[in-house]
């Protein structure tokens, strides 16, 4: 159909200078309620992570504040366990003092024992979101775990997106020899099973949160590369890119100023998927002993611990880790969605 849609009544814009694509996108984002809400949630998470990293919150996540497997507060303390030991016989003890050689010292020991002060703090019966098998607070663990997981997920996805976009842009835009070499590299990376590749990189980079992010990004860029390359292949022969060449725009300007904003939605969607994937991958790495250290906590290690607890009916660690992960991932996906919409000028004024 050749119908031309009319311009909808829009507020007159009094801006003097022509606004850039990013500036305009920001203005559009501010009008998207879901987008702003998700942006706030993500910002809160990031604030939490910064505070945790600075030690302002969740510093004492390793302190065993509750009884082992303490129940969440709203469930109340666990019912006292029924004693399964043999019943203590009633009636007075049989007096053995005349045959017991230690009998004269009992009095002395009792006095000395009374003098000793116990250092163990009283353990809470319940914790806000329950406790783990050592009695550590699950809430603090989840907050501290967010620091590791979100850091790994975001940094890894960002690095993967940069590598994938850069190589994909080069391969798609130039093609020819450059494209062949990059395709070869891509084939090598996808031909090796991910887990082997991760092991190989892990052997080089060693343990630690930073290395996990780097390892994951070095393994995870391939899918994004393929998609970005396809988009660049498609766009590099479009007339608007030709027109840019005709006015003398350099290849770099054509790639990153003209084409990139037009394919950014692909990168955003891919990146939000990568964040989710990397958070999960970190679990596997930690499980294999290549991820975060044993004295660290992440959502991944919490989930791994939850496995054995679940059999005993202690579900709260699983619930806490899942809740945090679900909220963050949902908010992050919605935020990237909103960003993608905001970057599309065609949707301006059509909400």
């Amino acid at each position, binding site marked *: *159909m050749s119908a031309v849609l009319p311009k909808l009544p829009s507020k007159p814009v009094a801006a003097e200078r*022509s606004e850039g694509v990013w500036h305009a996108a920001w203005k559009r984002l501010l009008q998207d309620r879901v987008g702003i809400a998700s942006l706030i949630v993500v910002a809160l998470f990031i604030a939490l992570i910064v505070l945790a990293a600075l030690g302002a919150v969740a510093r004492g996540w390793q302190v065993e504040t509750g009884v082992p497997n303490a129940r969440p507060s709203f469930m109340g303390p666990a019912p006292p366990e029924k004693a399964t030991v043999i019943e203590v016989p009633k009636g007075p003890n049989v007096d053995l003092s005349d045959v017991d050689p230690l009998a004269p010292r009992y009095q002395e020991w009792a006095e000395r024992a009374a003098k000793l002060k116990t250092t163990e703090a009283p353990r809470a019966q319940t914790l806000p979101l329950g406790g783990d098998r050592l009695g550590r607070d699950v809430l603090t663990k989840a907050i501290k775990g967010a620091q590791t997981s979100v850091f790994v997920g975001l940094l890894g996805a960002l690095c993967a997106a940069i590598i994938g976009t850069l190589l994909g842009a080069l391969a798609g835009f130039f093609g020819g020899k450059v494209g062949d070499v990059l395709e070869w590299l891509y084939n090598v990376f996808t031909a090796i099973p991910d887990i082997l590749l991760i092991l190989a990189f892990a052997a080089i980079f060693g343990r630690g949160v930073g290395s996990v992010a780097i390892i994951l990004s070095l393994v995870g860029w391939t899918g994004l590369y393929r998609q970005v390359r396809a988009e660049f292949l498609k766009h590099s022969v479009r007339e608007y890119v030709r027109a840019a060449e005709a*006015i003398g725009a350099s290849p770099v300007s054509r790639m990153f100023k003209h084409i990139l904003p037009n394919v950014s939605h692909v990168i955003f969607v891919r990146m939000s998927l990568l964040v989710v994937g990397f958070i999960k991958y970190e679990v596997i790495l930690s499980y294999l002993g290549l991820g975060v250290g044993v004295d660290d906590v992440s959502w991944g290690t919490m989930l791994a611990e939850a496995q054995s607890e679940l059999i005993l009916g202690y579900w709260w660690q699983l619930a806490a880790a899942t809740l945090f992960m679900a909220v963050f991932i949902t908010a992050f996906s919605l935020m990237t969605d909103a960003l993608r919409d905001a970057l599309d000028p065609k949707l301006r004024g059509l909400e």
Partner: protein
Amino acid sequence: MSVLLSIQDLKVAFRMGRIDGVMQRFEAVKGVSFDVPENTTVALVGESGSGKSVTAMSVLNLLPDNAERQGAITFMGRDLLAASVPELQGLRGRDIACVFQDPMTSLNPVFTVGQQICEPLVKHLGLGAKQAMQRAEALLVEVGMPEPKRRLKAYPHELSGGQQQRVMIAMALACEPKLLIADEPTTALDVTIQRQIMELLAKLKDKHRMSMLFISHDLGVVGEVADHVVVMRHGTVREQGPVARIFADPHDAYTKALLACRPTLERRGARLMVIDDHIAGHASTSVGKAKDPSAPVIIEATALAKSFWLRTGVFGRREFQAVKGASFRLRRGHTLGVVGESGSGKTTMGLTLLRLHEPSGGPTSGSAMFDGRDLLRLSSREMLPVRRRIQVVFQNPYASLNPRFTIGQTLVEPMTIHRVGQDNAEREARARALLAKVDLDDSAMHKYPHEFSGGQRQRIAIARCLTLNPEVLVLDEAVSALDVSVQAQVLNLLKDLQDELGLAYIFISHDLAVVRFMADEVMVMRNGEVIEQAGVEQILDRPQQEYTKRLMGAIPRGYRPRPAAA
């Protein structure tokens, strides 16, 4: 004659989402009534946005989900507005069939032609697979497809545009419909193919005694096929009547303007009539400046040739000569028209001059002297200052502007690259001045391309070229994608700019009537070869080649009284 399809007071509105809680509606069709009698061709004519396609698509409810229809559409006594989806599906393809504008996108690329023609046969007529194939072959013969048996197994991309449209028509005819809706069926095709398709449609309509609802923006085309014409503008019917009356004695000012704005082969005016001028009653007054035949030569091309490598097998490659030796001289302030069908190499020649083809794509030979230097042998560094002086306007205004750039950014960017102007403020001032020059107002600076119509976008593309003060403009089918009325505006603008700035144009087109209006010298190309080259009057008045005559014969001429015997 009994009435087959009757449309009474049809209104179509599109819901456009809520703004401040109030549903926004856009009325595309505001009360349209007309009848399609049996065995008759009714044409809906109008510009983009006139609601003609929306009207036709509401017959079978092929509209987007946000459309609301009111009024009455009666087809053979049945009310189509109240019809259920299964009822409509029974009608679609069976009693009412459609042919769309772009055959390339209307055919499914992963099925063979045969499979696609068989689908309605099996679905509506209940034929077996073998019978359906036989019928499909017969249909391809009927639509004049060469080698029909082999084509049944071909995929759509293996066919040319004209052949694809023939397949679409064969599909539409498969169940012998009573009404064929043809929505701009020839707009995406070359003039010569357009003529063939139009003749085919007229022949088939007579043979099968069906009715046709023909939609077009071009009165010239309509005049040749229609019996009855409905002229639409802004969602209302401006005028309707028998074709002879509309052409001989148009009552409505808009119809008169539509008739006047198409360039013709017969006369060559200084300006074309523009719809608004005509309605306002202005006569075209300005007289074109006489061209200086001894103006300095800007580009001199000799034996310009360009080949592409085609891959054959795994390692082999074969040379395909797209342009085989074109020579011409282009003088300042003059226009060279390059004419030919698709695939004749005219666009390749233009892009080779601009060096917009990858050098690895294939070898280039010959020379193109520009200001004492050979364009084909400049390094890309040396090419940069030359780029400023030779600019290009592409065919498709919907694709040639970056959708993520505001118009301001689009116009300022070339000036930044070539350091035209001192600072951004000066560049923006210049951009605003150029927008005014192409008849767009200041508010355009902050808008994005999708907020403009095709004609406006093409004017923006022209403004972008002008930012660099070029000496040569390559216009690659620059008006082919535009409506006839908008085309006139853009052609006038180009003429004015040439007079004012002394630009030289290389005007590439398949439409000889447009070339006649613009060009001083014409080059006719076919299969990469220049087969005829001379002054515009000479070529059009005394064409030497059969091919040129055919191109001229293909141009729609509007309504001609048919011989009484026919």
